[in-house]
């Protein structure tokens, strides 16, 4: 018994160490970004347009708004597709069809983001003969769809079947059961999964470089090139100037902070005071 207790304690320590290890990476990254980018962060960084190197007072207001715009469009294009497909896979699809769709989504999830960018460039940018926020959002959507589908399916499956049976027994058609009973029960998990999906693609550079492009000024519409934080980080990081490097770090910090705030905010709204899903 003592030996078993020792094993138990040892495994507790070992697994705990692994968890701490994973978490410490986050603090290391945050600290690193704050150290390198914190100095360049100021109010004007958040509210002004970019300035050329050597001039002070430049910011990334257009990139911050542009990223918001791209993500909002992604929510409009990609999330519904992933969500509805997830409902199909979990609730309506036959066994083979559901498996096929799930397989397709997994394959899509494994496509490197740069290949998705090349794809969106070939089917959207070249025919339209212009870079646009729409093309950028479309390529981000391709990345978001499989993750949203997976999250939706996963959480719909976790809804106890007694709920479905209860509603069906009361004579409700299947669609009503799904819409008014099953989906609401899984909503919290689905939203968390979706937020994570959006956060995941928010930092993608490769699919945007050849689709939404970038803009030194405010975007002039959804069919025009649009600035975004990841592309700004990329552009500034490859330049030879120290002040641009610092701005790149600062932009990385802003991007990460926005993601953290979004995460925290959504969680706070979803689960006031209570622990999420235990």
């Amino acid at each position, binding site marked *: 018994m003592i030996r078993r207790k020792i094993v138990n304690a040892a495994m507790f320590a070992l697994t705990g160490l692994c968890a701490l290890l994973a978490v410490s990476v986050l603090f290391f990254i945050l600290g690193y970004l704050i150290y390198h980018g914190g100095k360049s962060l100021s109010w004007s960084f958040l509210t002004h347009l970019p300035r050329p190197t*050597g001039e002070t007072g430049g910011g990334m207001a257009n990139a911050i*708004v542009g990223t*918001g*715009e791209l993500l*909002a469009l992604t929510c409009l294009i990609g999330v519904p597709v992933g969500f509805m497909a997830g409902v199909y896979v979990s609730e309506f699809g036959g066994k083979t069809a559901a498996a096929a769709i799930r397989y397709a989504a997994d394959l899509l999830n494994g496509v490197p983001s740069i290949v998705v960018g090349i794809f969106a460039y070939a089917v959207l940018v070249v025919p339209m003969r212009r870079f646009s926020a729409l093309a950028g959002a479309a390529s981000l959507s391709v990345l978001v769809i499989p993750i949203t589908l997976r999250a939706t399916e996963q959480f719909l499956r976790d809804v106890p079947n007694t709920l479905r049976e209860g509603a069906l027994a009361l004579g409700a058609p299947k669609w009503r059961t799904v819409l008014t009973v099953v989906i609401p029960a899984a909503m919290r998990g689905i939203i968390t999964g979706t937020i994570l999906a959006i956060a995941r693609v928010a930092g993608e550079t490769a699919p945007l470089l050849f689709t939404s492009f970038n803009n030194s000024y405010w975007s002039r519409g959804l069919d025009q090139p649009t600035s975004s934080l990841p592309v700004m980080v990329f*552009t500034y990081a490859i330049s030879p*100037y120290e002040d641009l490097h610092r701005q790149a770090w600062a932009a990385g910090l802003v991007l990460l902070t926005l993601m953290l705030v979004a995460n925290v905010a959504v969680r706070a709204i979803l689960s006031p005071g209570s622990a999420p899903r235990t």
Partner: protein
Amino acid sequence: MRTILACVLVTGVALLSGCAGSGGGKTESQVVALNGAGATFPAPIYSKWFDEYHKSHTGIQFNYQPIGSGGGIRQLLAGTVDFGASDQPMTDEQLSGAHAKVLHFPTVLGAVVPTYNIPDVSQELSFTPEALAGIMLGTIKKWNAPEIAKANPGVKLPASEIVVVHRSDGSGTTFVWTDYLSKVSPAWKSKAGAGNSINWPVGLGGKGNDGVAGLVKQTPNSIGYVELVYAIQNNMNYGRVRNASGAFVKAGLDSVTAAAASAAASIPADFRVSITNAPGAGAWPISSFTWLLVPQNIPDAAKRQAITGFLEWMLGPGQQMTQALSYAPLPDSVVAQEKQAIARIQ
């Protein structure tokens, strides 16, 4: 209910911010907006130029994005941008394959320098072209090899293995570097050749200038190559190289402009020329032009005027701004030749 509220809130906020952005831009309706893409090397000076030009010509917005020279050429040919930019001239094949005629306009000069990290050596090293080619080919393996030592009398070189670092991403910098090596070394020309991305005989690949610089800094006894601007701005040590006239030259804005000046007599009318291994006594041998690529026919009159106006300005006041950003300005003879070429845009 709470969850739906959260949903609506998040999308709402995101959309609002999006609308605010696009709405803000639409108020200036009479703006001529041009998009350009291409080389990363001149991007900082281009953004400086376009910003200054926008200040004096508020109705014109040039949006230039550094996506790479190859990308710039392809976008121009695909018609997704109004102008391109490249660190290497378009090939005859590319020009003949294009739907429309493309003109080359040199803007500034670039240079590539060998940078190294030998912990025990503090002196500035000198390299013969043969030594550089040998190191890059992997035939010269140690720092104290006679080919290197001969050019550096008095420097105590270690007997350690040389670690070569090169660019892993396709790059105009690599093109200039390998174009030079191909000119000075037949062995290099037959084994590796010149290009944006090549099959490297030896070495580690780093992504971008910072990747190469990072690897050189991190790896003892290594040698790599970076753009001169990058070396100057980041206080990296870089070596002298023996040029075509036999003198060991230090790379600097003057020696780079000198390289272009010494090659000026042989510059063709379309400006597509390599100036590596230039003949002048003070010329830095690993130099190159960088070009703006402009379609010869621009049907939209407003865009045409914007581009020709900018080119005129770039060759005048624009050239005065180059040195502050560590770019070498064009020699006067090239400027004069280019001013005449602007008239070809119709």
